[in-house]
């Protein structure tokens, strides 16, 4: 079977109500319906699953790893963006 006949799909699974869908992996399938079935068989074998999302991998727009410095490095020196400069009163408890 050729790659063209079975494009790549990204699989997102929501394990429980109240949680968000999480990316769990990818797989090859002929079309969306077959991808959904394959995801059920490959990624939900060992537990409760509430929902599966399938997305064509070609629909994912990804950042370029070679631009990592430009994209993400500048934030490393901006510690004031972290909410660590506040005194949280004891009465507030866990935030």
């Amino acid at each position, binding site marked *: 079977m050729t790659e063209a006949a*079975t494009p790549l799909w990204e699989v997102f699974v929501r394990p429980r109500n109240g949680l968000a869908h999480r990316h769990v992996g990818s797989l*090859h399938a002929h079309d969306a319906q077959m991808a959904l079935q*394959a995801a059920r*068989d490959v990624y939900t074998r060992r537990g409760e699953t509430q929902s599966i999302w399938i997305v064509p991998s070609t629909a994912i727009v990804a950042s370029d790893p070679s631009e990592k410095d430009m994209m993400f490095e500048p934030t490393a020196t901006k510690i004031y963006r972290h909410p660590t400069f506040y005194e949280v009163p004891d009465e507030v408890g866990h935030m």
Partner: protein
Amino acid sequence: MPLASPDPRAAWLMRLGDASLILGHRMTQWLSRAPTLEEDIALANLGLDLIGQTRALYARACEIEGGGRDENALAYRRAEPEYRNPLLVEQPNGDFAVTMVRHLIFAAYATPLYERLSSSNDAETAGIATRSAREMAYHLRHAAEWTIRLGDGTPESHARAQTALDDLWPYVPELFEADDLDRDVAASGFGVDPSTLRGDFDAAVAGVLARATLAKPAEVRGQRGGKAGRHSEHLGHILAELQVLQRAYPDAQW
């Protein structure tokens, strides 16, 4: 041909278990040989579902029988004539189209069977059937989607799917032929008369074949005998592989 068990209810459950064991074994023969990794796992899941159903059916049959046999004795210590599965499930895997069409036929029969059996007057059996119906509904979906894509795919996949359908269709009538045992357990409210399932089967299969652009084969008298213990040559080979360990080392434990 004597019943497989002195209790007709146990004999009938064993017959269902025999069908799912042999088909489940056939599916495990695909392990590491399926067309894609995804389908390899899918076929293993289908096989495991069937073998799980077998264990539950055999265990309940043994409880009803009350004679000290257990599920291992049924799976590993019986010879071909004692197996009462329909001939369909022992047919070779062939190519992927054969396996999927065989599974479509079986699942389209077993899904309504277990749906009806979930109102058995035996609560244990009803529980097994409820779980099995859910599993078989997914088997039906999986086999149907593949049959549609093979039939409505390339000229070669269409030809292979049509050949598979034509070759396996003679094994359809046996699934729905009621014998005395079927009628007996159905009349008592324990089991299901398979002849009442043909309408559901025809409706499910017709929809799939239409979308798959496959022609429904002409109705034939067909091949039968497995339900009465008369099997094709394939079952002996299956049992040789399935039973070799327990035959060589009786009572071997892991």
